[in-house]
């Protein structure tokens, strides 16, 4: 770690979108040669930018902690693309740790991703990839609150927060989707507000009696 003596810029935060998830596919005719006999799926877990841009200016390495039954369960990917392909037969929680570049002088970010191999029938909103490929992809944002000056310089030199304005097959996370979600939530809020009004009226009635 570089000696990060630089000052943090107070009251300021920087945001970078990030996408993580996994894709999975059943073995077809061809089995990977060195896959154990009980394995049925080929899956890939990844951490990337929303438009598959280079994020190595920010991320130094990504550590995937697999299930203990895998040999060398802790896999470290030190160069882009930050992804890992394995075979397996079951779903489990993968611990993902994102380490940032030394200049940032930030602690790593750790989260869990549930490896998905099988489709869920009740989820409709999930984008269905062709060829029976299962995918479980999440959008999130890395928030650097009060970054130090060096990180600030790095981030400022590379605008990367903009999302495409429209949904595409390649990148569904877009301004459009964001707006759609906001609208959905707004509908929910109005519904809740209505219910609150109703309840208030009921309570008032109860209190009157």
């Amino acid at each position, binding site marked *: 770690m570089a000696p990060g003596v630089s000052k943090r810029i*107070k009251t300021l935060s920087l945001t970078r979108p990030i996408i993580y998830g996994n894709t999975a596919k059943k073995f077809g005719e061809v089995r990977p040669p060195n896959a154990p006999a009980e394995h049925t799926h080929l899956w890939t877990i990844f951490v990337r930018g929303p438009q598959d841009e280079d994020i190595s200016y920010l991320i130094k390495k990504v550590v995937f902690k697999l299930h203990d039954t895998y040999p060398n369960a802790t896999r470290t990917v030190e160069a882009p693309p930050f992804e890992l392909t394995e075979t397996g037969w079951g779903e489990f929680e993968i611990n993902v740790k994102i380490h940032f570049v030394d200049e940032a002088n930030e602690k790593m970010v750790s989260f869990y991703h549930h490896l998905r191999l099988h489709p869920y029938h009740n989820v409709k909103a999930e984008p269905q990839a062709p060829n029976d490929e299962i995918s479980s992809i*999440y959008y999130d944002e890395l928030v650097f609150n009060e970054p130090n000056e060096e990180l600030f310089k790095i981030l400022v030199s590379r605008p990367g927060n903009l999302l495409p304005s429209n949904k595409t097959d390649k990148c569904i996370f877009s301004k459009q989707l964001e707006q759609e979600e906001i609208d959905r939530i707004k509908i929910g809020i109005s519904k809740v507000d209505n219910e609150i009004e109703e309840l208030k009226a009921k309570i008032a009635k109860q209190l009157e009696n």
Partner: protein
Amino acid sequence: MSSSDIFDVLNIQQKSKSPGSTNSPTPVASSSGTASNRAPKTQVTGMQRELYSLLGENQPPLVVQPSNKFKEKLASISKPSPWTYAPFKANLSVKLHHWVKGSKELVGEEPQESPHSKYNVHLTIPSFSREEYESFMNNAPEEQEKENSAQNDEKNANTDSKTDQDWTFEEADYLFRLCRKYDMRWFVIYDRYSSEKRRTLEDLKETFYKVCKRYFTAKSPDDALLSSLDYPKQKELERKKYLQRLLSRSAAEIAEEEALIIESRKFEMAAKKTLNERESLLRLLDSPNSDQSVSQYLSSQGISQLYGSLLSDKSKKRKHNTNVPENPWMKQQQQFAQQRQQLQQLQDRKHDGQDLASPRKTKKQKQEIQTAIKRKAESVYAEHLLKNFNQEERAALGVVTHGEKLAPGVFLRSTKVSTFKPALQNKVATILQELDLPTRPAMPTSEVMKEHEELLKGIATLVDLKKHLDKLEAEKSIVK
């Protein structure tokens, strides 16, 4: 084990002083022989004795001390005092003997009066002839009637006068003779009384006292003791009846009676207690101007006034009455705190005088102001850094100047979704599901998160309101 045994075992031919005992190792049973032989050695006991027995003497293992089983002889030096078997006069006719302390010369030959004869006193029971009886019995018939009616119920009056008449002189005389003979011991008299007519003990007593009374009224009508000769026959009969009943109770009845008595005691105690309590309560209630009329307290205003005065009075009283010792430690602490505050105020004043002439503020307020100033400077600096970027560029960079105090560091925005207490969290999740919304927004951008937070807040309010409503309804149902 005697020493001779040891010698036997060791096969040592012993030369004993006491011949005969060497051959027979049997212990000498009688201690008297040995005691006479070795008189000075009988006193030795304990360890010494064991040592002695090892010396080679054929001694018994146990020294039996001769003891006397009888009482010790009286070692009196004084001469015994003389006693004389002397005659005495028990009665006029009977002469008896008894032991008297003193020598024969002192007592004398004459048979003496018994010292107990002075207790042999007989009652003087009036005697009368037939004429006398007739005269004083018929002398005051009116008086008799009056007495009868006064003493007895009207019902019994007739029977009494009748019984009065069927007592002849002979019978009365016989009764008086018996009384004289047995010294008014009524049960004996009743036992010995033999007449063709059946007389109860009470009859006998009544007649005796009546005749006596007549006799004495005829003799000395002004005697003050005359009234003591009244005999209330009915009361006596009742008394006996009660006693009879009291003595013929069964064990169960006795137990029940005792239980009842205990119970009644309890009631009495409780009553006493409640009385005391009520009294104290009344005293308490009366304490403010009890001498005035109640009419002024009858209105609601008056009652509230009374209540207020009572409260104030009580607090006053308590202040006066509580003699609870103060906690010295608390007092000291308070003092310390006061001192510290004063010191601080002094310092603050100095600072304020130098910096700004603003009115004094609490420490917290000042801190807040300070941080606000600092924050402003910081945000100014942040703005300065961003001054080259316009709004769109800022959005592209994802730069925001929030101006808030947040923990520095990196985090995923989705982790900042508000959470609630577990129970509430479940309800919120259910409502979100009903609204067809995910618990984690699909795109946790800052805009979306803002909306999501608002939604969650709304849902929390909703849950709270529902709870309130349920509670109200439950209360209603209970009231109904």
